[in-house]
């Protein structure tokens, strides 16, 4: 596929790996967080970690909307589907997220709820227009990338007067999460890892541009490199971060210039501002309650806001005690540090959110990295024998 295959080229990858090895100073350590699940997935799937010198470590960030969605929000959706008889539409990503009482949207469907997987928010609106006698709720999740399409269907629903269509909005904001990783009191208590820089979001940045990250570079003295989601993009971004650290520079650089610019998609930003406003606070799995980190639907579109329409009240639900998703999402622990990993918790029967989405740190490591662990353990065993 054009503009994908070229950015997975093995010869170029070897060249970039050699450049990183050559330029990384053996006398120091480089800890970089890739914010996005898309980067986490690329790093695991293509074995990028194996191509890096031992002193360059990638820390997986919380940028997977499925992984950070708390149990209580999924409970709201399941409640609507099971008790209020709505047609509950959502992206495939949310279907297996574990909720209270061992439930998930998929299990609710098996219990008889009308849960439908859609490719696009527009499909959910189409279902509402085809079933005017039923209430249709779209469970919307996602970062800035996914918000503009939700804004468009909300505007369309209002314009067309689709009275039976509403949105349960869980759209969250990237910059707020990065601030939280860098300075929130919760993270200070719970701990975090020292970070030398960020691989910044690819497709989120197509919408918001590179400008919002300039604050982190200036205020927190952290280099940021916006990078595409292909393995070569990630490797080039790592090389650019190594160079910034070596040269003591802290600026925002854009590796993904084929799609991203400084301003982003201004039309999409205006649309999002018209339909949504900031929530005072929102609970994130792993990060806790983060102020002004999510969006809610404005009054003008209130008739299509499922929370108002059905009088929903959010109730926080604690995660499984043994689950380490919280620490893993902050880069404090690795998937293998969790007792549940690979035993009680697998992609087929996920207990924690990081195992649900293929972009979650645990699912990515389970699918691609655990064999490497086994080989390493085997080699250590052979040495001892």
């Amino acid at each position, binding site marked *: *596929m*054009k*503009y*994908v295959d*070229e*950015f997975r080229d093995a*010869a*170029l990858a*070897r*060249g*970039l790996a*050699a*450049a990183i090895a*050559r330029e990384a100073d053996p006398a120091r350590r480089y800890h970089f967080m890739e914010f*996005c*699940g*898309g980067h986490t997935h690329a790093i695991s799937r293509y074995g990028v970690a194996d191509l890096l010198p031992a002193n360059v470590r990638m820390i997986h960030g919380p*940028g*997977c*909307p*499925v992984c950070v969605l708390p149990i209580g929000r999924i409970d709201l959706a399941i409640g609507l589907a099971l008790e209020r008889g709505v047609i509950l539409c959502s*992206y495939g*990503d949310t279907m297996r997220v574990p909720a209270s009482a061992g439930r998930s949207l998929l299990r609710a469907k098996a219990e008889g709820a009308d849960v439908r997987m859609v*490719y*696009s*928010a*527009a*499909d959910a609106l189409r279902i509402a227009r085809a079933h005017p006698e039923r209430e249709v709720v779209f469970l919307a*999740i*996602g*970062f800035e*990338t*996914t918000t*503009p*399409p939700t804004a*468009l269907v909300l505007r369309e629903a209002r314009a067309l007067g689709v009275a039976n269509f509403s949105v349960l909005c869980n759209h969250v904001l990237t910059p707020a999460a990065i601030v939280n990783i860098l300075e929130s009191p919760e993270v200070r208590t719970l701990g975090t890892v020292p970070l030398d820089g960020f691989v910044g*979001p*690819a*497709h*989120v940045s*197509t*919408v918001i541009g590179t400008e919002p990250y300039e604050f982190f570079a200036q205020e927190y003295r952290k280099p940021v490199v916006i990078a595409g*989601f292909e393995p*070569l993009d990630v490797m*080039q971004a790592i*090389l650019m971060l190594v160079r910034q650290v070596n040269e003591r520079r802290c600026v925002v650089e854009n*590796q993904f*210039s*084929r*799609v*991203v610019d400084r301003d982003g*998609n201004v*039309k*999409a930003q205006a*649309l999002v501002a018209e339909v949504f406003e900031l929530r005072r606070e929102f609970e994130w799995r792993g990060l806790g309650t983060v102020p002004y980190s999510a969006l809610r639907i404005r009054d003008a579109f209130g008739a299509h806001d499922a929370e108002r329409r059905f009088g929903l009240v959010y109730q926080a639900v604690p995660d499984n005690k043994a689950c380490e998703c919280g620490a893993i999402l902050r880069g404090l622990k690795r998937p293998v540090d969790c007792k549940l990993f690979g035993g009680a918790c697998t992609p087929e029967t996920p207990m924690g959110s990081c195992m649900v*989405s293929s*972009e979650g740190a645990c699912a990515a490591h389970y699918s691609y990295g655990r064999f490497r662990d086994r080989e390493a353990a085997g080699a250590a065993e052979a040495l001892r024998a």
Partner: protein
Amino acid sequence: MCLAIPARIVRLEPGDQALIDVGGIRKQISVALVDGLAPDDWVVVHVGYALARLDPAAAAATLATMAAAGIDAGALA
């Protein structure tokens, strides 16, 4: 979740829609979020919506920079 794929616009259709080609597969998407698109333009597509243009010249420049990084200037000198 934020995955977006590169696609070529085959033709624009009424109602802010377009037919795209993704590695030989054709699909209808919305282009309501990106103004001024024309056939043969490249875009990145997310959940059925074009989010941004893809600039072929910038893509080529990025690949050239990657290739140049792989050349060890010290070893050549």
